[in-house]
């Protein structure tokens, strides 16, 4: 339908347009209430489900959060419980190791102290007192000789006897002191032994105290988890995120190792399974065979660490009896060693194949290369063989970060999902509100489009109201009159 067909007077476009606007306004004014109702209904029809979905998602996010919290706390409880258990085991071992020797140590200390006491008592023995005749000597010393020869001789004799006796007494005194010194000298090892034993006791007690402090910290954490506090949840969530990041990093490094391993054995595998078969357009059968070997190595490593009870990914293995577990451990280890040996051989074969190819290319090229370097040229070969042997064992340890990744992925995934659902809920609520507001805006816009009839309506109503007020005033005046 062309624009011209809408014109009542095609020759007079402004007049036709005016007529159309007037007719349109009249029609819109007449349909004002139903149109308002329609806009309101539309806003409600679209907005209400959105808001409802938003509310439902918010409730779902809250429920998921609760479930995540329950799982997280249960996991944390188990983990901290295991740690506490391990600390108690360690504590038990320390107590058993150190305290079981305490009776012996105590006996030894008592013996040494008794001996020291005895020696001390021996040291306490006083030297023999000077003889009683010293008074007699003093009396004799006061005798006046007055040149009497007899007296002088007697005194001389006494002096000689006294000097002899004095020398003997001094000698005995010195000997007694020597003996005491010797006893005191023999004290030293005992003192040292006592000192050493006491230092050991102090060290053991300090170690015990440290372990007890660790247990206390773990117990505090355990109590918080048991109480289900937000602090514990936050700490566990942060810990899970850290674990996840670390495990992911280690897994990425391990993937790099696996890639190097793959490169080492892919070419020689083509010597075994052929190089002409393809699984996909870019993946040869020999490469798949190499991948399979790497995956089998990783699996063996997984079983080995599982049997060693380092990881706990397979409850079935953990619940095996001791004999079977040990058998499994040795089988996994033997297979891993065998595969490592095979890889070392393949690495050597790779080097030989590359050398053969190089020799062929050199024979085909116009410029012949010089002779190959001696022992220096063998370093890469040896390096490849060593890598081929070591990498399977290194890959075996993937099990540890893998377990960590799996366990922390539950928490990380749960938290991310909750955040996503919350964000979606918010978006839906905002969208619902926006639709409701949009319906109101439409109503206002509708009224703007028919502003002239509305203005006329207001004027008419105003005139009627003033007329009615005038009538009322006249009535009032009449009443007054």
């Amino acid at each position, binding site marked *: 339908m062309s624009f011209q067909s809408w014109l009542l007077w095609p020759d007079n476009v402004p007049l036709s347009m005016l007529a159309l606007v007037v007719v349109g306004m009249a029609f819109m004014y007449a349909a004002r209430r139903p149109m308002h109702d329609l806009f309101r209904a539309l806003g409600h029809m679209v907005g209400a489900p959105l808001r409802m979905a938003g509310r439902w998602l918010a409730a779902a996010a809250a429920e998921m959060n609760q479930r995540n919290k329950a799982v997280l706390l249960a996991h944390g409880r188990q983990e901290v419980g295991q740690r506490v258990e391990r600390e108690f085991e360690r504590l038990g071992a320390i107590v058993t190791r150190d305290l079981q020797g305490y009776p012996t140590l105590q006996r030894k200390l008592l013996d040494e102290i008794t001996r020291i006491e005895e020696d001390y008592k021996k040291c306490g023995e006083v030297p023999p007192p000077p003889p009683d005749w010293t008074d007699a000597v003093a009396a004799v010393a006061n005798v006046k000789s007055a040149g009497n020869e007899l007296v002088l001789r007697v005194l001389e004799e006494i002096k000689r006897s006294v000097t002899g006796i004095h020398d003997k007494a001094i000698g005995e005194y010195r000997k007694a002191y020597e003996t005491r010194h010797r006893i005191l000298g023999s004290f030293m090892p005992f003192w040292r032994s006592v000192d050493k034993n006491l230092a050991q006791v102090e060290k053991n007690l300090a170690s015990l105290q440290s372990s007890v402090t660790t247990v206390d910290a773990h117990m505090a954490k355990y109590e918080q988890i048991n109480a289900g506090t937000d602090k514990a949840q936050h700490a566990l969530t942060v810990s899970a995120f850290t674990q996840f990041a670390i495990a992911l990093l280690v897994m990425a490094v391990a993937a790099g190792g696996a890639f190097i391993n793959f490169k080492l054995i892919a070419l020689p595998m083509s010597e075994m399974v052929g190089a002409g078969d393809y*699984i996909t357009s*870019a993946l040869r059968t020999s490469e798949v065979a190499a991948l399979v070997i790497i995956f089998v190595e990783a699996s063996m490593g997984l079983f080995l660490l599982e049997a060693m009870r380092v990881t706990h990914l397979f409850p079935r293995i953990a619940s095996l009896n001791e004999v079977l577990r040990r058998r499994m451990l040795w089988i996994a280890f033997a297979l891993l060693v065998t595969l490592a040996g095979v890889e070392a051989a393949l690495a050597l074969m790779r080097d030989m194949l590359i050398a053969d190819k190089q020799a062929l*290319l050199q024979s085909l090229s116009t410029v012949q290369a010089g002779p190959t370097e001696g022992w220096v040229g063998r370093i890469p070969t040896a390096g490849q063989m060593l890598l081929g042997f070591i990498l399977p064992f290194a890959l075996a340890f993937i099990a540890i970060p893998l377990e960590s990744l799996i366990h922390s992925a539950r928490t990380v995934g749960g938290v991310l999902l909750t955040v996503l659902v919350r964000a979606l809920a918010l978006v839906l609520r905002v969208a619902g509100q926006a639709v409701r507001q949009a319906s109101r805006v439409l109503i206002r816009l509708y009224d703007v489009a028919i502003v002239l009839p509305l203005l006329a309506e207001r004027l008419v109503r105003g005139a009627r109201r003033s007329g009615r007020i005038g009538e009322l005033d006249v009535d009032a005046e009449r009443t007054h009159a």
Partner: protein
Amino acid sequence: MDRRQFLASTLALAASGCGDPRSHRHAVYMLVDTSGTYAQEASKALLIVNYLLGTLQPGDSLAVARVQSRSFSEKDIVAKATFDTRPSQANAQKRAFHDRIDAAFRNVSGSRYTDITGGLIQAAEFLNEGAAGAKTIIIFSDMQEELDKVTVRSFPISLKDIRVIAVNVVKLKTDNVDPRRYLGRLDEWKARVEKAGASEWRVVNDLDHLDRILTRS
């Protein structure tokens, strides 16, 4: 195979769970023009054969044939081999192949006529007999076909899904006089090869960039 391809292939393998039925083998048939003065260029042909021997993978096939007065004959095939899938065996085969080609092109006597079409038909027949996924004919020639009066080659040929690479297309004396002759000759061959259903036609005159021979455009 780089890391990205490795991961993609692993995922593809996990998704598909079965082998790829398509053949990934490459078969190359090389025609060496030994007619007239072009016989002097035979030593350059050895370079290309050496390049092919160094580039082709285990499981691929290679055949080298002469272009003579009438070339639609198995007798013109100098050497042919499908390399073993084991790399060590393939290398041994390549050495033997090289020795054989070296001996064959040491003393080349030029033929009177040049039957390129007959060589192409023979090459297509050889390549189609094998189950290679990629088929390439390398024509080491000046692309100047000269046939005797008896030989009939003026009929449509089929080179369906075969790449045709003309290598070392030297200019003749007459081409130097009027280059349009050279360009016209190449255009004619291009039209003929494409009409025969070839998947690609390419001219490689720079022997320092032989990688263009086996690289698809």
